[in-house]
């Protein structure tokens, strides 16, 4: 594809999808909808990412423990003793 082809496709694209009017505005006040959304999902939003991070860490810790126990099986009784 040469520069001429690229320019032609860009021009075609601009004709097919004309730029949006910069003065376009929402048809209604969206603040009530934002408030409804905040009321509906405040708790989930605050806790979900934290839970995800905690789960990821737990699984990584468990995987590390399994790898360690497989590599050094003699340490399993020692671990069990301290649990």
């Amino acid at each position, binding site marked *: *594809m040469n520069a001429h*082809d*690229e320019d*032609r*496709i*860009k021009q*075609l*694209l*601009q*004709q*097919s*999808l*004309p*730029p*949006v*009017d*910069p*003065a*376009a*505005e*929402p*048809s*209604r006040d*969206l*603040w009530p*909808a*934002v408030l409804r*959304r*905040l009321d509906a*999902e405040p708790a989930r*939003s*605050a806790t979900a990412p934290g839970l995800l991070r905690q789960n990821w860490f737990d699984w990584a810790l468990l995987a590390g423990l399994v790898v360690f126990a497989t590599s050094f099986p003699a340490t399993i009784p020692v671990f069990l003793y301290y649990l």
Partner: protein
Amino acid sequence: MPERSDNVLDRFRQGDLDAFESLFREHQRSVYGWILRIVRDPAAAEDLTVETFWRIHRAHDRFESARPFEPWARRIATRAALDWLRARRTESGLTDQDVADLPSNSAPDPGIAAEIRLKTARAFGRLPPGLRVAAMLAVVEEQPHKEVAAALGISVGAVKLRVFRAIRLLRKDLLEQGITP
């Protein structure tokens, strides 16, 4: 930035709802306009503006009040719009009505047949969302590459690469439909 605005940003960071509303009133139009440029569907752009401000509120404690609000909000808006495009990817592409309904500031060129314009719009709708957004903002909306890069959280070089790949894929799709650009 005026001192009052800094104060509003500080209060927003602390979770003050009035400060959040002030920021919403100040930026909702630009956020809506930015999303509309990406999704090109006024009703979806309104829903995504609500979604964006909900995400903004959720992330208030991660906002750095020394930095400007607008680019941060734009980045969250771009992510929300991309999520929407990805979720909608399995659905059919743009229709004649979608293209005709969009608030635009320019009339189509009568020299290019309506059918070719529609086929081009549909082919564009089949591009991967990441490429589509970069091309839409940089080529169609003629936004500076630096702003597009900031909104997408990638480098200017990556924006140029995405635009190039989008144009190449679009050309291939059009050729397959018998349209020689």
